[in-house]
């Protein structure tokens, strides 16, 4: 029977030979990721109420990122609770090392073909590794932590194929903004989105992560990229096991719900206007929009390669007068690597302010938020009204290149104009 990658992974996790889209099955979870917001403070009381412990502490991965740096009484109390729970349970815990969706792949623990859940909507990021990973809420997570199982309605697959190759000045972020614009925020129909085609295959692992990450904005349950040499090289580079990726692809004759075909070569840098990622348009069409704040941050837009891209623009230039450029590297590992390569020095020379390795302004949970009437351009995934600050603030989305270019120009601009 011809099956999609999503079907193959679910069938294996459910202990079945094959599964059919629409069928509801109970699957065994290979890895459960939780963070300081939806994690211990929410799941521990439920587990206590049920009178049960963890099904397997070695399969639970805890990260503190939403309330870091914990600069208020309330947030430091949440972080203290998180640390206490980590000690009590003995789960793997990365504390203040960066954002969960970035530090999990960097830990080498997430393997191709895994069936994994995360207590966060951007959990499809794991699909970049060829894992079926999806986001769930805290109550459902408590159920997983107690039993190691979860029910799933086997999704159809929406195949999104990008042919050609991204031109210089374009990034995975531009692909995703264009897709949000074309398909809408429910275009993924809570099915499995699989990205394929030459333009996708030539992306690095961190670029693939950006792609899979924003499957959340497309409304897909998970966003998969079939593992290949890029995947195994990445896993080796982070010291993980060399995985067996045989059979981890969609069979050529497996039925899919939809098959979209796009050309990467003709794509122009994209921005999304307030207040939806679906408000996508070429950056050149928004060129007269002046900005106050430029934000390079989040799991979506501040990984090592995002920082490196922004530095290409910022090298030898300074942020425009009156504009604030804020940079919150996604992980400590990526920031250290960027520092070693001189990238952090470029940010400093350009006049950027560096923030902690955490969700920061993107989640909008902390003290630092956008003020009233501020216009911001951001490398993050979402620009919902009031998410990053005051309800009157206006957030545009763009790639790290586009954000850096706007910081220098003082207004939105096609970043290719600055890549000489």
């Amino acid at each position, binding site marked *: 029977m011809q099956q999609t990658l999503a079907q193959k992974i679910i069938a294996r996790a459910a202990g079945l030979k094959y599964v059919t889209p629409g069928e509801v099955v109970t699957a065994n979870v290979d890895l459960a990721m939780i963070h300081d917001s939806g994690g211990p403070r929410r799941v521990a009381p439920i587990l206590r109420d*049920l009178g049960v412990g963890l099904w397997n502490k070695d399969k639970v991965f805890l990260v503190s990122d939403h309330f870091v740096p914990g600069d208020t009484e309330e947030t430091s109390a949440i972080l203290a609770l998180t640390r206490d729970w980590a000690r009590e349970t003995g789960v793997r815990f990365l504390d203040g090392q960066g954002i969960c969706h970035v530090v999990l792949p960097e830990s080498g623990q997430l393997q191709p073909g895994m069936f994994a859940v995360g207590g*966060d909507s951007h959990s499809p990021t794991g699909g970049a590794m060829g894992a079926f990973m999806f986001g769930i*809420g805290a*109550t459902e997570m408590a159920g997983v932590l107690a039993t190691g199982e979860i029910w799933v309605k086997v999704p159809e697959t929406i195949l999104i194929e990008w042919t050609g190759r991204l031109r210089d000045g374009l990034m995975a972020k531009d692909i995703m903004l264009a897709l949000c614009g074309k398909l809408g925020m*429910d275009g993924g129909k*809570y099915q499995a989105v699989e990205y394929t085609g030459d333009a996708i295959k030539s992306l690095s692992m961190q670029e693939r992560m950006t792609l899979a990450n924003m499957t959340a904005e497309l*409304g897909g349950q998970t966003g998969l990229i079939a593992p290949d040499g890029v995947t195994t090289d990445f896993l080796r580079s982070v010291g993980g096991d060399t995985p067996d990726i045989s059979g981890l692809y969609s069979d050529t004759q497996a039925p899919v719900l939809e098959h979209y075909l796009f050309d990467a070569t003709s794509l122009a840098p994209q921005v999304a206007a307030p207040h939806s990622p679906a408000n996508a348009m070429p950056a050149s069409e928004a060129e007269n929009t002046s900005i106050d704040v430029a934000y390079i941050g989040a799991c979506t837009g501040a990984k090592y390669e995002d920082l490196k891209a922004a530095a290409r623009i910022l090298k030898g230039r300074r942020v425009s007068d009156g504009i604030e450029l804020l940079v919150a590297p996604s992980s400590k590992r990526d920031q250290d690597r960027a520092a070693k390569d001189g990238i952090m020095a470029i940010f400093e020379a350009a006049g950027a302010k560096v923030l902690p390795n955490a969700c920061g302004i993107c989640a909008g*949970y902390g003290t630092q938020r956008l003020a009233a009437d501020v216009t911001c351009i951001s490398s993050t995934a*979402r620009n919902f009204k009031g*998410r990053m600050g005051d309800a009157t603030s206006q957030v545009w989305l763009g790639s790290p290149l586009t954000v850096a270019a706007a910081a220098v120009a003082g207004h939105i601009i096609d970043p290719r104009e600055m890549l000489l």
Partner: protein
Amino acid sequence: MSGRIFLFGDDIDTDQLAPGQYMRGGIEALAAHCLEATRPAFSVDVQPGDIIVAGRNFGTGSSREQAVEALLYLQVAGVVALSFAGIFYRNAVNLGLPVLIAPSIDGAKDGDKASLQLSGSVLNLSDKNTDIALEPMPKNLQEIIESGGLVQYLKKRLASKCKGQ
């Protein structure tokens, strides 16, 4: 349970339902700001038994369960929408909030008196004496909602398992 309809558009996101800046505190403070970005007085105007009727992709965005919890705290009877974002839908079932898909919401107006029947899968507009048909909920999910959510449902199941042994 009957109440009034609060009508919303497409893509009502979790940052509107549970604004991030109040996520560090308790549900009472959070619920007071529920949907204020779209409808500033919502948390004050909404009464127990009122029903949310919305367009496509209700609950898009974050996995934060507080988006559902805030509506439960305000004693909203349920949400009827053209479609729901996947994680929100699962969270609603798991916390016991009725969420029903309507093929069309054309007949519903803001402020209409209405009642929602989970088992009958209809939204009855009492003043107009008409029904809006809803897609029936899968039985297993209906069972979880009627138990009051996943935790209560699991407790019941665990208890019957113990009895069986």
